[in-house]
């Protein structure tokens, strides 16, 4: 299903968001918004600030000492800066990184990690949750008989799906994926893309990608970021077929980047 995203209320909004790392500007007054239950594709050349953008959403940018931010990020209309308990924010936002990270513990413990840190210790509840997340990330059939295997011993593609399962373990309402397919094979990528299209019914997805075709396949809207600036954003087909700026057209057609 493809809900008409324009009918959905705004879920995530960036207002004049700027980020500096020391003296260098990583994001320059970014403003755009994402409706609920939609997939927003964020595309742009390497080093243009895409990953930084994700880190402002769950405030993990605060772990980088030299980073400073200006402007606002709003989730459901609430400014993330004003959320006093940062863990209640991170619980609602799932993150998947470019390189798969299996934590050095069993597959089961990997998926149960975040729920346990939130105080869930009931065995039956965790069992069910772990199974659901692994099913959602298309990993269940491959690991169901060896849930005690170390997460770090899985293959790259499996670890990436494990990372996805972990991100889903808190039922996030916003799922951020940072070039999730960079380290995995095309078949697995397609499998995960299918899963994400299904997950859209339950959550809003922010998809940072270098693959413009992946954005075209999946995203309802696309934001093009180049050299720290938001060049333009809009519905996917409009941006691909009829971009407002020449630069956008050239990037989306693979002429630079």
């Amino acid at each position, binding site marked *: 299903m493809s809900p008409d995203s324009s009918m959905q209320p705004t879920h995530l909004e960036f207002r004049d968001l700027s980020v500096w790392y020391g003296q260098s500007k990583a994001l320059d007054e970014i403003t755009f918004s994402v409706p609920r239950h939609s997939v927003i594709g964020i595309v742009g050349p390497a080093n243009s600030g895409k990953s930084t953008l994700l880190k402002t959403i769950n405030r*993990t940018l605060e*772990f980088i000492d030299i980073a400073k931010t200006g402007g606002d990020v709003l989730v459901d209309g609430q400014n993330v800066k004003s959320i006093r308990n940062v*863990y209640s924010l991170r619980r609602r936002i799932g993150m998947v990184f470019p390189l798969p990270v299996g934590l050095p*513990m069993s597959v089961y413990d990997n998926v149960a990690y*975040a729920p346990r*840190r*939130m105080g869930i210790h009931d065995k039956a509840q965790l069992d069910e949750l772990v199974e659901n997340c692994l099913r959602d990330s298309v990993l269940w059939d491959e690991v169901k008989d060896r849930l005690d295997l170390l997460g770090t011993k899985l293959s790259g593609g499996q670890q990436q799906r494990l990372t996805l399962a*972990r991100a889903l373990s808190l039922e996030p309402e916003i799922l951020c994926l940072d070039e999730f397919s960079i380290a995995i094979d095309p078949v697995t990528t397609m499998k995960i893309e299918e899963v994400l299209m299904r997950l859209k019914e339950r959550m809003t997805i922010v998809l940072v990608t270098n693959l413009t075709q992946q954005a075209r396949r999946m995203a309802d809207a696309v934001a093009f970021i180049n050299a720290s600036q938001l060049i333009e954003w809009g519905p996917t087909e409009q941006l691909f077929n009829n971009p407002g700026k020449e630069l956008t057209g050239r990037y989306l057609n693979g002429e630079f980047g």
Partner: protein
Amino acid sequence: MPDSNPFSPSPYELNKESRATLAEWTTFSISVALLIPVALILTMIAIKAAPAISWPYLTGDVSRSGAAGGIWGPLMGTFYLTMLCLVIVAPIGVLAGIYINEYAPDNKFTRSIMVAVTSLAGVPSIVHALFGLGAFVATMGMPKGLLTAAMTLSVMTLPVIITSTREALSGVPKNFREACWNLGASRWQTIRTIVLPNSFGGILTGVILVIARAAGETAPIMFMGAVMWLRIAPSGPERLMPYGLNDEFMALSNHLNLISKDIPGMPEEMKFGSALVLLTLILFINGIASLVRLHLRRRKRW
């Protein structure tokens, strides 16, 4: 038609090969040469100590200024001294290492802490002895004894534990931490569930090596209540715990130092006997550290 052989080496390649061989043999022979002094020292001490080593020597009292009897008092002193030192320095050093590696922002304050740690590591042990005397005894008014000696040793070994803890912690890849933070785990939860379980072996190894260092030191304790001779109770629990926290004490390293230079006519085997016991003790502790490392390398999880 030898010239057409595509694998015939050029003069440059021949030269390269001989230099490679030379480099390998030089480094190899120097490494082997290192074994010679170690083997000589151990053999010599073992041979000269052999007549003295016996069960009564280990468990007997020091008599006639060390010229006769055993080394029970110094042995117990060294044991309690190092244990006490460990109890003081391990928590402080490990916690400081955790702060510096996991929490401290990269700023002037943190860098000045690190400069302090490095400088502390470079201070000669005799200066630590004077510091202990000045700080704990003269300024704080504590009595010279087991506790103040252990505190002095703790100051001396603190940078070693901090550095080894930091190294162990930084061996855990950064992306594990980031994955946890993104899952909403706090820094402390991340340290407790991911960082410490996966660096425990390295931290433990550092702690064990500090025991070896503390057991062998003489300078820091000789001003701090380590004495030539004390009367040890012949039996009962006081035989096993001969010294109170504030009591003067005997210690192997100090015992060896005194009997070797201050007592004329000291039988050779008595000197080498205590040297061998001290050396064995330290090698034994180092051996444990190696075993721990070996065990943990085998179950490395990534």
